[in-house]
């Protein structure tokens, strides 16, 4: 099923010559990668990070700077992805080690602050980043054709999906879910939750950096916006609306949000109210958090699962509350 969709998407640019659609779909693929990486944290490990943009930005800047300073070739491009991922791995490892011991509130705030630091750094270090103005650069010759880039990004998306699916279905991934469900108990079973959380955050950071590298090349331009809270918010909205704790969810979420955004900003030319499209997502997001905490994919999956297996569980198990 998923294979068929992937193949259909791969053939798409050859049968349709809509440039807009090729670009839009490329964008969706890139954000799908980012959202999936975010879901490793939020959905599988139960960590709320408000600093995911820093890894995305790290990848974007590494690739942009290397393509501009060295040369715009495929080799440099691939090398820059590797360098970006390595940087992201190192930084997420150290940040994780220092902060993942903290409770969720503190962790969320600390990641917010650290990514804020990176944003400040990028704004001040103008010799390299040119601050908020940003800079343009040349993409490798091979990507001059948008369709080639489209295919490459799609292929990377498929690979990342397969890799992450293996990752979350592995014994390691199951421990992550156990950490999310009950950290105390996981610890008493002899697993060190910190160890697992740190590795999850490294994987998430590395994949986010990859998405950032692709994003920079897709625009052939980079500025500090890749490090802002908006990027983290996008990942968050996509993951929540699409469905946390599934890998398809974030992809669906990315598609929905990018498409709606595209459509609504088209409408905004006639009706200025649609410039505020983010309100719409904000409300959907809030409703999703309250009523469908599993998102679109999670909710559908649950419905199907319930229909096929009659669950024999106590009906009114009261939730453990803080009060």
């Amino acid at each position, binding site marked *: 099923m998923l294979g068929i969709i992937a193949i259909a998407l791969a053939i798409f640019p050859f049968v349709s010559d809509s440039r807009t659609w090729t670009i839009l779909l490329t964008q969706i693929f890139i954000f799908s990668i980012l959202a999936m990486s975010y879901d490793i944290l*939020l959905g599988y490990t*139960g960590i*709320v990070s*408000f600093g995911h943009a820093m890894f995305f930005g790290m990848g974007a800047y590494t690739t942009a700077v290397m393509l501009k300073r060295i040369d715009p070739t495929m080799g440099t491009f691939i090398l820059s992805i590797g360098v970006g991922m390595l940087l992201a791995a190192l930084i997420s490892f150290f940040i994780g080690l*220092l*902060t993942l011991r*903290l*409770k*969720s*509130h*503190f962790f*969320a*705030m*600390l990641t*917010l*602050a*650290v990514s*804020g*630091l990176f944003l*400040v*750094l990028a704004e*001040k270090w103008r010799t390299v980043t040119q601050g908020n103005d940003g800079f343009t650069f040349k993409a490798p010759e091979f990507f001059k054709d948008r369709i080639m880039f489209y295919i490459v990004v799609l292929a990377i998306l498929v690979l990342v999906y397969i890799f992450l699916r293996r990752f979350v279905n592995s014994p390691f991934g199951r421990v992550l879910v156990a950490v999310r469900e009950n950290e105390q108990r996981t610890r008493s079973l002899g697993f060190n939750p910190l160890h697992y959380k740190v590795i999850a955050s490294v994987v998430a950071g590395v994949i986010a950096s990859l998405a950032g590298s692709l994003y920079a090349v897709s625009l052939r331009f980079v500025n500090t916006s890749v490090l802002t*809270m908006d990027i983290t*918010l996008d990942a*968050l909205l996509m993951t*929540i609306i699409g469905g946390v704790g599934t890998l398809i969810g974030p992809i669906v979420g990315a598609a929905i949000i990018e498409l709606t955004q595209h459509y609504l900003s088209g409408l905004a030319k006639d009706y200025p*109210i649609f*410039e*505020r499209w*983010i*309100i719409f*997502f*904000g*409300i959907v*997001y*809030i409703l999703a*958090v*309250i009523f469908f*905490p599993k998102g679109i994919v999670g909710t559908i999956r649950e419905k199907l699962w319930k229909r096929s297996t009659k669950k024999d569980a106590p009906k009114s198990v009261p*939730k*453990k*509350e*803080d*009060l």
Partner: protein
Amino acid sequence: MELLINLTINGLATGMLIFLLASGLTLIFGLMSVLNFAHGGLFAWGAYSGIWFYTLTGSFFLGILFALITGLVLGFITEKLIITPVYGNHVQQILITLGFMLVLTELLKVVWGPNQMAAKVPSYLAGSWEIGDVLIIKYRLFIIFVGFLIFGIFQYMLQKTKIGLVVRAGVMNKEMVQALGINIKRVFLYVFMAGSALAALSGVLMAPYSGVIYAEMGFEFAILAFIVVVIGGMGSFPGSLLAAILVGLAGSYMAYYVPALSLAVNMMLMAIVLIFRPQGLFTAKG
């Protein structure tokens, strides 16, 4: 000397604005373990609604009053609609309040337009006094005065009244407060509304201080308030005053002496506190 005094007054004034924002945040967290990421939205709403009403009526005082009412009403709505449905689930709380922040910010643009809005200091607070060589801007002193006044009022309420006693007891042990016959959810609603009103007050006072207001100011300023809450200790009211002054002064001195570091210094301060003393410098005991 003159410079130092001015930098200090500057820092104190900023510190007081941050304190007004952070004090509500810290009480809400202390009492209900809710970290309200939408708090900055209430700040921005206070600024816009207050300045709008001030421009309409010509009275800054009425503007402040209107901002306070906006804060109370929005606080009530936020607590009922956003906070109550996800009591007890930290991850959901973080997610939902952040989402609400987004909605509040965008709604602001729908109501008052996406552009910046100018805000003037009222004539009776404009200008400055000259004491010796030192020029002291009146409005900054006014902010400092209001900050200490609010601190005094709240401190009195917390220490001397029954509701204050209940709030302090609730910060330490929620279960026990309920077992003594107190409806803590109602107490929490009051605290949430009061905290929101303080955020709105902070916003409307901030407006003439910075001269312009814009929708994203809530988010930018809220980060400072979060830093203050962490440094001061979650749930500690006096702690938030001291930490706010610290952050205000550090920002003010740094902006002058080491401008490159001015934005980063507070975040580094918070990171250090979180890593080495995650309970904050001042804490309410259980």
